[in-house]
């Protein structure tokens, strides 16, 4: 029986994590223009890829936004 509780807890944790990511994404503006992003895939095989950056960048940093492709 205790295994069921463990599984239920894990299911709830996964659900809470999913909700947290969703809320973060909404606040971050990822869904602010949900339809425009579908055109991105049409350009996916046309552009040359940028070389990797020397240092990791977290999403939302000023520098990354400056490189934003409209």
């Amino acid at each position, binding site marked *: 029986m205790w*295994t069921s509780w463990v599984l239920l807890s894990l299911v709830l944790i996964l659900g809470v994590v999913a909700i947290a990511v969703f809320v973060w994404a909404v606040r971050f503006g990822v869904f602010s223009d949900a339809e425009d992003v579908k055109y991105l895939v049409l350009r996916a095989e046309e552009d040359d890829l940028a070389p990797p950056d020397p240092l990791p960048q977290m999403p939302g940093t000023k520098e990354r936004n400056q490189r934003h492709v409209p």
Partner: protein
Amino acid sequence: MFLKWFSDEEFSASKNFCYSAVAWLVVGVTFAVILAIKFVIPDFLGVNSYLTFGRVRVAHVQSVALGFLSAGYVASLYYMVPRLTGVRLYSERLGNFSCLAFNLTLSTGILAVLLGYTEGREYLELPRLWDWLILGFLLITAFNVFSTIARRRERQIYVSLWYFMGTMVWFPLVWFIGNRTFVPLSGLNDAAVNWFYGHNHLGLWFTTVGVGMVYYLIPVITRNPLFSHKLSLIGFWSIAMVYAPTGAHHLLQAPIPEWLKSAAIISSLLLLIPVSAAVTNFYMTTKGKWHVVFSNVALRFTMAGVLFYLMTCLQGPFQAARPVNFYLHFSNWVVAHAHLALLGSFGFFTFGAIYHMLPRILKKNWYSMSLANWHYWLTFLGFWLFFIVLTIAGLQQAAYWSQSTPWIQVVRALKPMMVFRMFAGFALLTGQLIFAYNVVRTALMAAPQPEELPAGIEPAPARV
């Protein structure tokens, strides 16, 4: 230091995973044909313990699920994530290292199974050491994927990336839990955890990466924008919310808590939401471009996979209903359903992805589009024969069992079906051998001049 031995060439990790997938496909389908022959000629290959049905079946499942599909999926991740983010993969060397480690791990794991070392748990048969090695592989892949996405050039996140990111969080966790790495269990507790893994392996790895791949392939090949990105996000977030508890529907006849069974049935029904969102989007995006299916083998495989995906996901909730499950459980119907999902849906998605990616990675056309068409039709028709035969066999079995017919009588009655199944296996193996030959010849073919590079959506055949 060690990683410097591996290539840093763009898309080299994706290419090597493509080759690995094709190699494991041939191995896995060969095991499958041995099994199909054993259903007709039980003494085939003698009484050699290494090649008994129980061991070869596990080798088949691991070769196709972990070997072919998972390698093909990682190849797709390492190709599509850079394409969608506009930056190169975080580390091609790490990807190539993980490819080598993955192949060594799986080869030795399957050898161990054939030698009789197994945990004896469905889909989790590899011994414990291999559980940790594959967990390490998944974490490396997740690290490479997330590190690439973190450097993306686009603020907005396309739906495929949502599916890939979700998977790379969920699946390592599902693998960790399913392999009992947190605590040893026994009896029904173990069965509950086993099926938590068993179904989420399908739903939070094969489904989520596979659907993400299709969301990439259809718009890119047809040059139609996605029908509705909002609808695709509804599909993603609903699958994130409802998939996890479905596994217990494999244990509806077992004495596990009733509420756990009910939760599994309800979540199985709720899966119709993400499925209908995805399939509607796939078909509506293809609207006006159906003619491309006839000329482009990658899109043909993908759209056939979408059809099989729809069928799988209509069967799933139907089978999760208690009376239906009681009637059909343990019969060949379930085997047909499992192959509809893994070969029909996700296998076809992987074929579509490889047909699309490999010419673009190698910067040359396929050696032969004629062979690609042969591969498609042998696989498509071979699979249909296999699926129909096993579905009928399952209904026969269920009907006999409901009347308490003696077991040996049921075995005799099913023999014609097993013969058809064997011939379907021959067709499938022939198709995969043709595919592997085409891949090898394409890889060995001399690179074309720049003006002959593949352009647009349909690579012209190099030799017909």
